[in-house]
Structure formats: structure tokens, C-alpha cells
């Protein structure tokens, strides 16, 4: 009996020690560790790749400068990238690991609202600023005052699409097909429907499907077809968008296609089919055609071999917001960086960025239209409107 108690204690000790021995590097004063969490595996692995490439670009820029210039001293920045598998509890683990073992001073990501909400609880408690690149759900920054985002929020995005459809395109009857299992998709659906009805339009069909695994939308689309809308809004993720759009056209629905920032991948027109997506409009927070973005787009394309998506652009911006805050911070710690981030005044690829008191960036929504297989700038809608 005694022997086993002893054995158990020794065993558990050694197990626990075994884990703790894996890492725990000391932060050298002239080096700063920064973390990035993203969905490297799982069904949204494409975002993980986009973000990793964005961080690689940031790192390359830093290396060319010989480090980050803080008050004349070159500081070496180490980026530590962790996978969250698109699972909230793994995101929490990743955030804990970054904060506790790697001693990061700020975290970029994750790309999902759900993962961000879960992991932000950790960084909030540890007073480490976290900035999500594409966590567009309203609740994200409500976790606490250390949580930021680099993108526009769902309600605003939905409103921009509704406003653009109603006022600029003159549409009165629209339909929506959305994923009711997905935070992002369901949030945009609600925002769009509310805004469009408030403007005086009519949403003739609001159809849901459940989960990214659904590949056949015939049943939903036949309802949409019978309702005969002038436009169909498709807030979905990249693994569904091509299929939905193809099936919309395949069913002979000729309505205008409307989308949101999840459409913003360079490969999207090719993936959907050029004839299908031609003429579609979508709103996003970043236009690769903008003058301010030219350098970034070129550098990113050279490095990664494809044009930056919204996701990678936002990861790049989030990283720069953090780096800029480190330069301006009064003390180089979580609180100092957070305070400096609140005062961000920075020119980034998507334009001039500042934060409002809820730590959401004040940015305009950009409308793009796919013409000849390339998304082109149509106009922008500013938040005050």
C-alpha cells in the first residue's frame, strides 16, 4: 500500500515534470516573443496557411531591418505559431502555452470568432493583448479590454451589404442562404436581414443549412428559386461557397450574387468557376487594388506565390498593429502594449487604422465586384453612414 502511494506520487511527479521540461525558454531582454494562433489543421486549414504566410512576410521584413527598431535599439522578434484545430479548448491550450511557456507579449489570431472568444479569456486574465485577424463576431471584443480585432464586425458588414444592395443596386427582394451551425454565418444572416428590412426591402427567403459538411443545397435553393429574389446573399465559408454558387446557377437562378469577407480569396473565382461568379459583389475590409496595398500585395505574392486574401491581409495588419504598439509602448509588457494599441494611428494596406473605445478598428467596408475573374474595387461604405 505505502509503496504504491509512493510510486504514484513519483509517477505523477515525473509525468508532470516531463511535460514542463519540454519548453520554458527565458525571454532575453533584447528579444521579444510574439504568438500567433490559427487553424493550421481542420476544415479551415486554408486560413492557417494564409496567416502563417502573412507572419512569414512580417518576419522577413523584420529580418531585413535587422529587428524591430524600439527607441534606436534593434529588438529581435520571434514569432511562435500554434495550431488550434478550430476547437475552442485547443485554442485555450495554445494561448496558455504561448503566454506561460513562451512568454509572449501579444497574440495574433485565432481566425475564428469562437476560438478567439475562448482563448481571449486566457489572455485577458494574463493581461496580454490579443488581436484577432478575422474574428468578426461582435462578442469577441466584449470579452475584455485586452481583446482587439483587425477587421470589421458582423453587424456592420451585414449592414453594408444590405445598404449597398438597397441603395446602390436598387434591389428590393433578396434571399439568404446561410449555415446555422456557424457563428459567423448566422451572425451575418441576422445582421443583413435586420438591416435590409429596416431599409424597406423584403427578404423573400431565408434558408439555412447545418454545418460545413452539407454539400447539396437543392432543397434550400428550390425554395429560393420559387420566391424569385433579385439577389441572393451567401454568407458562408470557403468550403461551401463554390458549391452554393454553382448550384444557384445550376438551378437556373439568375439573381445577383452578394457575399461577405469570407469570399475574399484570390483563388475564389477560379474555384467557383469564372462564369458563375462573374458580376458578383462582396464586401470586405481590404482591397488588393487599393494604392495603399500595392507594396504589401507585391511582397506577399512574391513570398507566398498567391495573392493575399482578406484573412492574410488582416493577419499582416494585426501583426503590424502589435509591432507598432511595441515601438510606442511606455513599458514593454502586456499592459503597456495594450495601452499603445488603443492609441494606434497607423497606415496599413487597408488604409488608416484607429480603434474605437470597444477596440474595433474604424474602417470602411469595401465593395468589390468580380469582373473578368478578378475582384475589382467598386466603392467603399464608411461606418458613420
Amino acid at each position, binding site marked *: 500500500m505505502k509503496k504504491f*502511494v509512493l510510486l504514484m506520487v513519483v509517477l505523477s511527479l515525473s509525468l508532470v515534470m516531463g511535460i514542463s521540461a519540454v519548453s520554458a525558454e527565458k525571454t532575453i531582454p533584447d528579444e521579444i516573443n510574439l504568438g500567433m494562433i490559427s487553424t493550421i489543421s481542420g476544415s479551415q486549414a486554408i486560413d492557417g496557411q494564409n496567416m502563417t504566410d502573412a507572419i512569414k512576410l512580417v518576419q522577413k521584413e523584420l529580418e531585413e531591418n535587422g529587428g524591430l527598431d524600439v527607441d534606436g535599439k534593434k529588438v529581435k522578434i520571434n514569432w511562435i505559431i500554434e495550431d488550434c484545430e478550430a476547437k475552442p479548448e485547443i485554442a485555450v491550450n495554445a494561448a496558455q502555452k504561448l503566454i506561460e511557456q513562451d512568454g509572449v507579449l501579444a497574440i495574433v489570431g485565432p481566425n475564428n470568432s469562437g476560438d478567439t472568444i475562448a482563448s481571449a479569456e486566457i489572455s485577458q486574465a494574463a493581461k496580454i493583448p490579443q488581436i484577432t485577424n478575422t474574428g468578426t463576431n461582435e462578442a469577441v471584443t466584449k470579452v475584455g479590454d485586452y481583446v482587439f480585432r483587425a477587421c470589421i464586425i458582423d453587424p456592420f458588414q451585414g449592414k453594408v451589404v444590405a445598404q449597398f444592395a438597397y441603395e446602390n443596386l436598387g434591389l428590393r427582394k433578396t434571399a439568404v442562404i446561410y449555415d446555422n451551425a456557424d457563428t459567423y454565418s448566422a451572425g451575418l444572416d441576422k445582421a443583413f436581414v435586420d438591416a435590409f428590412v429596416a431599409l424597406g426591402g423584403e427578404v423573400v427567403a431565408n434558408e439555412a443549412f447545418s454545418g460545413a459538411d452539407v454539400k447539396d443545397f437543392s432543397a434550400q435553393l428550390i425554395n429560393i428559386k420559387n420566391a424569385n429574389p433579385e439577389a441572393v446573399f451567401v454568407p458562408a465559408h470557403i468550403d461551401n461557397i463554390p458549391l452554393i454558387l454553382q448550384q444557384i446557377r445550376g438551378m437556373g437562378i439568375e439573381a445577383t450574387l452578394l457575399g461577405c469577407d469570407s469570399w475574399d480569396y484570390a483563388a475564389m473565382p477560379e474555384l467557383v468557376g469564372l462564369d458563375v461568379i462573374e458580376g458578383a459583389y462582396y464586401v470586405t475590409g481590404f482591397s488588393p487594388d487599393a494604392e495603399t496595398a500595392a507594396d504589401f500585395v507585391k511582397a506577399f505574392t512574391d513570398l507566398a506565390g498567391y495573392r493575399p486574401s482578406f484573412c492574410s491581409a488582416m493577419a499582416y495588419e494585426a501583426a503590424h498593429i502589435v509591432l507598432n504598439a511595441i515601438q510606442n509602448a511606455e513599458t514593454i509588457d502586456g499592459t503597456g502594449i495594450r495601452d499603445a494599441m488603443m492609441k494606434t494611428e497607423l497606415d496599413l494596406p487597408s488604409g488608416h487604422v484607429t480603434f474605437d473605445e470597444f477596440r474595433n478598428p474604424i474602417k470602411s467596408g469595401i465593395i468589390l465586384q468580380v469582373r473578368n475573374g478578378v475582384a475589382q474595387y467598386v466603392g467603399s461604405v464608411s461606418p458613420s453612414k
Partner: protein
Amino acid sequence: MNWLRKNSEVIILPLIYVVIFLLQKNKILNNYIIQIIMLAGVNIIMTLSLNLVNGMTGQNSIGHAGFMAVGAYVSALFSKIIFSAATMPPALQTVFFLLATIAGGIGAAIFGFLIGMPTLRLKGDYLAIVTLGFGEVIRSIIRITPTVGAARGLTGIPKLASLFWIFVFVTITIYVCRNYMDSAYGRGCLAIRDNEVAADTMGINTSKYKVQAFVTSAFIAGIAGSMYAHTLRYLHPDVFSYTKSTDFLVYLYAGGVGSISGSILGAFVLTALPEILRFMNEWRLVIYGGLLVVIILFRPVGMFGGKEFAFLKLKTGGIRHIGFSNLFQRKSKKTAVANEEISQ
């Protein structure tokens, strides 16, 4: 004293807790490791719950995350929405946390009963499909229920679970499972697992025993759900997807089905493994999948199959080796006979 000797887990687990607590106080263990241990604790409770059904009673539940979801949502509903425990004084918080946890367990147990009643009368793999379906149905319902946040997920659940409470519930679960296995009910379940027809002939009310084990298991899963909700503070229906159920199956079978030690070890090691593999970056889940196959190939009964840690050995002894060496042979013959009947 005699009781303590027989139920040594009630001494050893608190001891481990004290050790971890001291290490945490002295900054040897950081929050990251504590977080993993807490998550492992939740997974251990779930795996033990699954062991009651799959390991002891020989039934196949492959959608156990559904019960966890019920427990998580019911308890979060209780502590966040009905009683907003976050604003209470600490002592009252603890009371409401325990009440919420029990409510979660009862909620899950009710669903367990509703599912077990009709299904467990049938023989074969029906429980597998029905539990699989149940998990999906529960998720669909949560998705469209605005009270619990629908597809947005439920945020702001008060952080009431701590390492201490998780240890308390792990200890209770181990205690309950061991004694269940050692009781007449447990023996009945083991008999059903080893040969259902024979058990029936011997006068065991097989449906009743199976439903009892299943409902108990659902209750424990509900408790694990409550721990999960109050640790993570965020719930989303997709967390409790089919993949989650598979995780627990993997913990159970890689650890050693039917063995309490195996369940504990499997859940702990396989929760920690993907974290230890973090240095592999994008290859980490590749390695994890590969290792899983290797474990099953080299130890088909799991790491601890058919064995127990000494302190978790069955109290009455004697029956311990039943099944594990001969059971499989017998079972495959039994199914071969059954095959004859269904094939054309």
C-alpha cells in the same frame, strides 16, 4: 480504516492534488500545464463514463459527447442564465456551482434514460447508431435555441470549476465506478458483456442492467459537461460534434477498455500528447494518428487493458481476469454464428 484501505483512491487522488497544488504554488507548474491537467481531468471523467457502457456492459455508445453537451448546456443555463452566479459571494457560488453540476448530470441522465429505454432492448449495433444520431439531434436543437446562444455560442459562463473541483469529481467518479463494478449491478453488467444470452439465462434482467449502467454513465457525462463549461467559459454546439465522441472512444480503447486505470491513463496521455507534439507544427496530428494505430496494433487491448493499478484493483478479487484473454475469441465465434443467420 478498513474502508480507506479498500477505497484507496480517496487518499491517493487528494495526495496527487496536494502535490500538484504545491508545485503550482512554487511556480514549478505554470498555468499551461494546469490547464492541460484540468482538461485531462474532464476527459478522464468522460472516459470513465464511457467505460461504464462500452467497457463494462459491452454496449457500443459512439455519441457520448451528446450527453456531455446536455450536461454542459443545462449547467451553464443554471449557473449563468437562471441564477447569474457570477455576481454572488464565493460561498454561495460554490453551492450553485454544485447544484448546476448536479442539474447537468440529471439532465443528461434523463436523456440517457429516454434513449436507453427503447434502444438497449435491441441487440447489435443499434445503440451505436442511435447515440450517434442523438449527438447530432442535440446539436441541431442547441443551434436554433436562442436562450443558450444558438450558433453564436454561449459566452460569459462564470469560471467556477477549478483544479480542486475537477479533482473532487474525478475522485468521486473513480469511487463510483469501482464500487459499481464491484456491486451486484456491476457483476450483472460484466456478465452481459461476456455473454448476454448466458446472462439472460442465469436470470439477469439484461435490459434493466443495461439501462441502469447507461443512465449512470449519462449522469457522469453530464457532470463532465458541467466541468467543461465552467472551465472553458464558452460553449458552442459544434464543440460536441461527432469528432468529440470519437476522441473519448480513442482515449478509452487506447487506454484499455474495461479497465479504470486504462481509462484514466488513456485520457491523460492522449490529452497531453497533442500538446507535447506541438513542436511538430503541421505534422503533429499526422504523428498523433500514426501513434494511435501503433498503440492499437502493438497492444490491441489498449495500454492497460485487462490490468489495473494496484490501488484500483477490484476489492473482492478473483473476477479480475474474466474475459480479457478469452472473451474476444468467444465473441468472434458468437458473431460468426449470428452472421450465419443474417447473411443470405
